[in-house]
């Protein structure tokens, strides 16, 4: 479980996150939704340690993530997998080397073990025979799938997905959604997804946090969204034309 308590973050004196508190449970797909510029991405970057908040606490299964030494933080980070909006695959490495990267960096597995795990991860995201291709040679949907394969390479406990459907056609979007939901269940991962895509939210979310003007404005599950009387959330749902 990931717990956020009273997170505050500002840039050059302008506050972006205000006392954000939330919990994301294990084995569930938790969505963070909200308008662009509302603070979703800043919140996710703060959760994974790319940004440091001015105040507040972040706990990963009871382990404080903020007030620990760099080496201890590295251990928690190795338990995190992240799917970036653009894939963030390493341009200079092939698909195989991209997925193998965390294994080569943090394990002493033999070459055969690494390749076996790479092929397992690729198969898990329904990709085969793409090992030697480079990121510039594959489509956006394939990049996302390779990104997921890299994120699950070391059996992460926590998976963060930043706009996993952006720039994808509806069919590929659904495939990526299904894949994330299946992996979350299969490996019992705590998954946090930033998204605008309300179809994804209604299809696969277990828990939803609506971020508005830098605050955790509303929390609930997908069944409560339609009956909510939170005006800002209702406006957001209506605007998404779903």
């Amino acid at each position, binding site marked *: 479980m990931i717990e956020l308590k009273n997170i505050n973050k500002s840039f050059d004196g302008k506050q972006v996150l205000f006392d954000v508190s939330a919990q994301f449970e294990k084995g569930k797909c938790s969505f963070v939704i909200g308008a662009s510029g509302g603070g979703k991405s800043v919140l996710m*970057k703060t959760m*994974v*340690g*790319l940004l440091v908040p001015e105040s507040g606490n972040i706990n990963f299964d009871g382990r404080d993530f903020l007030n620990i030494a760099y080496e201890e*933080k*590295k*251990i928690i*980070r*190795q338990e*995190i997998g*992240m799917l*970036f*909006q*653009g894939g*963030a*695959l*390493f*341009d*200079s490495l092939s698909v195989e080397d991209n997925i193998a*990267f*965390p294994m*080569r*960096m*943090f394990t002493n597995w033999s070459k055969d073990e690494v390749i076996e795990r790479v092929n397992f991860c690729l198969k898990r995201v329904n990709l085969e025979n793409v090992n030697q291709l480079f990121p510039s040679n594959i489509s956006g949907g394939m990049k996302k799938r390779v990104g997921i394969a890299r994120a699950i390479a070391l059996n992460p406990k926590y998976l*963060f997905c930043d706009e996993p459907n952006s720039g994808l056609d509806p069919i590929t979007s659904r495939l990526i959604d299904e894949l994330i939901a299946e992996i979350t269940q299969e490996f019992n991962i705590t998954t946090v997804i930033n998204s605008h895509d309300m179809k994804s939210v209604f299809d696969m979310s277990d828990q939803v946090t609506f971020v508005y003007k830098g605050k955790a404005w509303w929390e609930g599950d997908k069944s409560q969204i339609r009956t909510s009387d939170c005006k800002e959330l209702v406006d957001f749902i209506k605007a998404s034309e779903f």
Partner: protein
Amino acid sequence: MKYLNTFGEYLLFLKLSIGRPEKFKMFRELFVRDLYKMGNDSFGIVSIISIFIGAVAAIQIGYQLVGSLVPMYVLGRIVRDSNILEFSPTVTALVMAGKIGGNIASEIGTMKVSEQIDALEIMGVNSAKHVVLPKLAASVIAIPALVIYSMFLSNLGGIISVNFSGIVSVSGYIQGLLMDFDGFSITYALTKAFTFSFLITTISAVHGYKTEGGALEVGWASTRAVVQSCIAIIFFDFILTQIMLYK
């Protein structure tokens, strides 16, 4: 104040990027790739520039010696010392600032704006060390090696030049070339080459690493990296010359 702040950021970046590699095997792979890219891919441009610099230096210095009381065979010695002490290390470094420096800044800058640096950090990798250290190690080998190569070629350029222009006989020129050689000039040139390669790599890397935005900002970072590397080279050229040649 702004310059002090920038210098402080540069020092902090050095602290972050220099140290023992996290995984030596990965470091070795990147180091070999960068060494090949920096060294092998620069032979052509360094060859052309060195031969022509030596050739032009021989003609220009020869032109100034004509009619003077200085014997013409001294031309070889003057051109040799000019090449070894100044032209080869400084001009090679300036060319490398454009070629390698621009490449480092744009490569790291692109990694930054496409979130590849973030991906490394989230995995628990010290991204600055992982990306910069192999490039730094490769450049402090590749650039001094290219400077030594340039020393030979620029002196060869001088020989070719006097052969065609007839300012002095080739045998006379070579006599001057071999005259009163002081090994310290090589030490001095290589000290400059090591310093310049360190400056080019670290200045370019810090500009790439600080890039935020998109393709436009990557271009600016690359330009700033080249300009500031060139200024640093010229500045340290003066400082090292003052320190080493006037002890």
